[in-house]
């Protein structure tokens, strides 16, 4: 084939323009919905109420649905630990508004200030509230910091499209401190930072040895279908096996209710291994992606919220890359 090298640079410019066009249209969409809904700004209240987890730990339980203008992106769990020196926050929600409201709730109910914030991974429903904590050290693993640096603004743009006005003034704000795996003592709590992956390229779980509470981030979903948009399923399954070894009293999943047993771990593991095997089989049998999208889902997963929706999203995301591997 006779292709000049010029085409290579054409191609790069092309991709650049496509991305720019895409971003611009997202911005236009975001701005237009912003203008229309501005009147309702005072109603952007997430009505956050934290529930206690044992003694001294609290969690804001989010919806188990997908992002919508109704839930304002409040679909994940954010938690905090009350120590004798101040409050440790784990994940900051989906928007600047969420972060501000969360912070106000914590400060008014505890009378304490916030001394540390952790981000469990780079997904927008877990870190976009960071902006409300700019005066506090925000800590995460290097991989998560890198992911927020590189993808944060794009993910923020996507949420503007999905939840609209709730995102007003929200910007991606990266963690300010890099932590390494291992134990640290904060406010008298022995906190273990656990570096894992699989839900994303870098996931952080936090185990509070003082209270026995495990903050699993999105490595565990409970009664909610696991989101696999950035997943490596094999690695994720390995990470769950690691977490299963911990002797926790309470498990706070990234999405869904708090548990004290292994149920949520087994549920997440079961769905992910089923999904992996099912898509591998589909490829083996020569199914096109549009056929894989229509496969029947086992009855045992009916407890998982938004099962069909999240399954389809997962197939759309995973199948093309599995095909590339299969055909190479």
């Amino acid at each position: 084939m006779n292709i000049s090298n010029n085409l290579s640079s054409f191609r790069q410019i092309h991709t650049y323009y496509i991305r720019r066009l895409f971003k611009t249209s997202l911005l236009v969409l975001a701005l237009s919905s912003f203008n229309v809904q501005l009147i309702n700004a005072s109603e952007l209240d997430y009505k956050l109420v934290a529930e206690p987890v044992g003694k001294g730990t609290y969690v804001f339980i989010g919806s188990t649905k997908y992002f919508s203008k109704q839930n304002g992106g409040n679909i994940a769990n954010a938690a905090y630990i009350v120590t004798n020196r101040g409050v440790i926050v784990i994940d900051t929600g989906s928007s600047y508004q969420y972060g501000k409201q969360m912070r106000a709730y914590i400060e008014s109910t505890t009378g304490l200030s916030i001394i540390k914030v952790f981000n469990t991974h780079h997904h927008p429903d877990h870190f976009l509230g960071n902006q409300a904590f700019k005066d506090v050290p925000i800590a995460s693993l290097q991989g998560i910091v890198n992911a927020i640096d590189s993808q944060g603004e794009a993910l923020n743009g996507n949420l503007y499209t999905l939840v609209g006005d709730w995102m007003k003034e929200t910007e991606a704000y990266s963690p300010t401190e890099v932590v390494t795996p291992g134990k640290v003592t904060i406010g008298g709590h022995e906190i273990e930072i656990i570096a894992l992956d699989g839900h994303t390229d870098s996931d952080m779980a936090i185990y509070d040895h003082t209270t026995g509470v495990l903050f699993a981030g999105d490595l565990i979903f409970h009664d909610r279908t696991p989101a696999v948009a950035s997943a490596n399923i094999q690695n994720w399954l390995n990470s769950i096996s690691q977490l299963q070894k911990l002797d926790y009293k309470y498990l706070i999943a990234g999405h869904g209710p708090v548990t004290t047993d292994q149920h949520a771990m087994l549920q997440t593991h079961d769905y992910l291994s089923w999904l992996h095997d099912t898509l591998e089989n589909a490829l083996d049998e020569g199914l096109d992606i549009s056929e894989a999208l229509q496969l029947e889902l086992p009855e045992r997963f009916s407890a998982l919220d938004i099962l069909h929706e999240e399954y389809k999203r997962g197939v759309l995301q995973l199948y093309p890359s599995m095909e590339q591997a299969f055909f190479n």
Partner: protein
Amino acid sequence: MTNSKILKKHSVIKQISSLKSGFKIILSFWLISSVNLANSQPLVDPLDSPSWNLVHKLILSNETVVFDDRVKVIVPDMAEDPMNVPVSVTVDGIGEIEEIRLFADLNPIKEILNFHPGKIEPFIAFRFKVQNSTPVRAAARTKDGVWHVGGSWLDATGGGCTAPSLGRALDNWVDTLGDVKSRLWSRADRPDRLRFRIMHPMDTGLAPGIPEFYIETLELKDKHGELLAHIESYQPVSENPFFSVDLESKLFQGIVLTGRDNNGNLINQVLQ
């Protein structure tokens, strides 16, 4: 025979003859209504698209059309990745299909692909690019020249936190241009299948300063060089297109894919 039996027999004959005339009436009604259906202008578009009349004219040259749900177009409810929207078309129970045209009413480039199934099944699946929410339709032409049209709405307003094209690396696409990878499946419980992927940028020409660069034609030929099926593809077919088609496994041996893009680059590969 007793009198009562004769009476019974008589009434049965009567019933049959009235049934027959009823049938005739129904049949003639049906003929009249189907003729009306084919000729009446305008047709009622089941997808209620603002541009049905336009695509009827542009894509199908205002030829005779019936909306027919035996032409099944399957797209996801939501285009998570607008650069890669899976679509499949199945035509079942309308007899021999000469051509299937796929198009999206509201896309900047409406034509997606024309498929001439020839000696293979009237089924094709692949991925395409979409700019916004639009009906996605397939029109299947039978031997009598009538286009049977089916379709679905595709919602493409989202994007979510899943936009994968953001992280997609640019590799050395020139080196692999036109490369084909394929697999064939003999399947007991389903039609036999061929899947093939062609490396090609499939540039739309809509981005400023970037010329269109896309595969225009593809042919499947048997080992004797006889044409089995052919495709005319357009710019909206996704980058590095990936096709699934169904054909009998006895045709597998020595099957060849040939093709050409709008710059004259050729594709020629024995499939296995």
